[in-house]
């Protein structure tokens, strides 16, 4: 039983680390623009396909391909927001959120039109698990978690020490006050979208590295991303990370007591519990 417990903890931690990146992206965008952008699912898929082009067609190694995933998903996120969602934002968060669902479906089908439905794989070897005291640990998953950690640290440094990060935090804390101090909200929105969806692109590629790459890669983790963001606190950067680990580990632990069929219900359960007892999430709305 202890071995099963530890194995679930390891699996959940590694899954949570990968989930944390798109959740961070989701909350970065929410913190600045104040609406849930569900197009993050397809933008994560776009990042995964961009990384696939770099890795398989150009022969680039995975870390370099992740940079391509960040740039392309970030650019696509900023561009699609400017074209499709910015006109909707003055009509309220609900309208923008509904628009983002439509945008997600549009992008998903655009990927399908361009790449087809067949699953694809990256040009990377698959390694056997390490066995550590009876616990199986996947080298690829550890590497993915490490890369996710690097991206998370980079985001924290960006927000903490750079002028861009400070303007983003200022807008997240009080958009009206920030604008009165001369901060251009449109420019900050563009930066938040680029960074947020860039992180989602990296997360999408990391998910695809472990699973399969097809037009639904991002959609399959959308519920978990949303659950992580809500559990941690919508708009909260550290909350997204904490929420991702809670959801990742919670889903794995559920399999110790429930049939695996019910595993994905844990995401819904987490959302319900948090909204019932702590609507602002574990970390509230504090962006940083």
């Amino acid at each position, binding site marked *: 039983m202890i071995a099963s417990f530890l194995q*679930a903890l390891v699996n959940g931690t590694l899954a949570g680390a990968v989930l944390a990146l798109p959740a961070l992206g989701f909350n970065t965008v929410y913190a600045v623009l104040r609406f849930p952008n569900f197009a993050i699912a397809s933008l994560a898929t776009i990042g995964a396909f961009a990384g696939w082009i770099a890795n398989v067609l150009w022969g680039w190694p995975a870390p370099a391909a992740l940079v391509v995933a960040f740039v392309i998903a970030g650019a696509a996120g900023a561009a699609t927001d400017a074209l499709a969602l910015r006109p909707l934002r003055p009509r309220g968060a609900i309208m923008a959120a509904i628009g983002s669902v439509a945008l997600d479906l549009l992008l998903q089908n655009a990927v399908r039109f361009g790449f087809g439905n067949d699953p694809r794989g990256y040009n990377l070897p698959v390694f*056997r698990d390490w066995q550590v005291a009876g616990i199986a640990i996947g080298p690829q998953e550890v590497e993915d978690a490490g890369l996710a950690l690097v991206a998370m640290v980079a985001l924290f440094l960006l927000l903490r020490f750079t002028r861009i990060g400070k303007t983003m935090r200022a807008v997240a804390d009080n958009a009206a006050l920030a604008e009165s101090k001369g901060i251009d909200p449109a420019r900050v929105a563009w930066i938040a979208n680029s960074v947020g969806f860039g992180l989602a692109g990296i997360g999408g590629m990391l998910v695809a590295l472990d699973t399969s790459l097809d037009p639904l890669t991002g959609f399959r983790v959308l519920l978990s991303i949303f659950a992580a963001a809500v559990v941690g606190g919508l708009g909260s950067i550290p909350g997204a990370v904490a929420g991702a680990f809670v959801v990742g580990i919670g889903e794995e632990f559920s399999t110790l007591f429930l049939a695996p069929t019910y595993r994905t219900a844990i995401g819904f359960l987490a959302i319900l519990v948090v909204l019932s007892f702590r609507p602002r999430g574990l970390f509230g709305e504090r962006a940083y």
Partner: protein
Amino acid sequence: MGSLVSRRAVLGGSLALPLLARTGFAAAPIPLGAINPLTGAGGAYGPSMAKVAQALTARINGAGGVLGRPLALDVEDDQTNPTVGVEAAHKLIDVNKVVAIVGTWASSVTTAVAPLCWQSHTMLFCVSGADSITKLPHHGYIIRTQPNTYLQSGRAAQFLLQRQAERVFGLSAQTPFAVDSWNRLAQVLGQGGASGIGDIIYDPKQISFRSEIGKALARKPDTLFLNSYAPDLEILLRETYQAGFDGKRFTFAYAATNAVLKALPAGVTNGLFSFAPSPDLASPAYRAVQGILGVNDPDPYSCQIYDHVSLVALAIAKAGTASGVAIHDNVRKISQGAGEKVSDPVAGLRLLAAGKEINYEGASGPCDFTPSGDIVSCKFLFQVAENQRNKTLFIS
């Protein structure tokens, strides 16, 4: 004074006019629907199924249609999703007024669509495998060209016994046929001296199955039965390899697609056994499907939808009228019995016009059906993955 002609009739007539002008038919088209998985988990098959249905419809129309009327085929995408499938069926039945729907693929979609069909007396031709489908109270309005789960799983178990499997563990995506498949497989394994030691049903939308695999391998199986679709099979193959499993792995051919094999290193997929109901490779209808798709080895579902369209056309011709009831009453009269064997629907239509009896044998096989709508028999193709491609072992 009320309008003598409804707006819908005017609209329908105006939409039909270009078709009539184009095809040279004086009579109104016979509306026919196809619900195919153009996207989603079945997206590897839907586009080719739709292409075959459209090409055969065009060929029949080019040869004079059915009873002097063209077939008007409307293809809808179900996204391999029962909710979307039901929306598509409502549109086809309520708006298009189709006489039959062909080519539903996923068992969940067929199960959801079937009540709409039998309630409206619309014939439903499916390629889904779940046993429960033909046990529905469909009153004869379902015809299935895919062998049911009982037939498939029994044959799968015999193959595993031939390969000296002794301890088989099942990892099954949550589908309407998951439980029936496993129960039949375990039953035949038991009769052959092996054992089905356990089965886990999983949610296929997960991104990792490490916990499920850990539980399975803890039971020390020598064979894993992966009852999966393509996206989850890719993850299962990767993660069972990572977990150090070196035993036999067996799955359905619709999951072990060449795309899945190419997405993973050969070392991960080599030795994966898969099977599928085999089309009749010697049939002229099979060669017709090869020609339509431009490939040597068309998938079984494209072959089956060729037969669906053929059966619809021939049953209508036999009945002398186009309706779901007419197809229901006549489909077995043209697909089995002592009539002249035909594999070309156009040739069959000519024979029927000449007053002859026919027995259609199609691309997928004999097309003989039980009273409940299941096929009586078919052959199976067994294959093994080698260097990122499926290699045929045998057909029997």
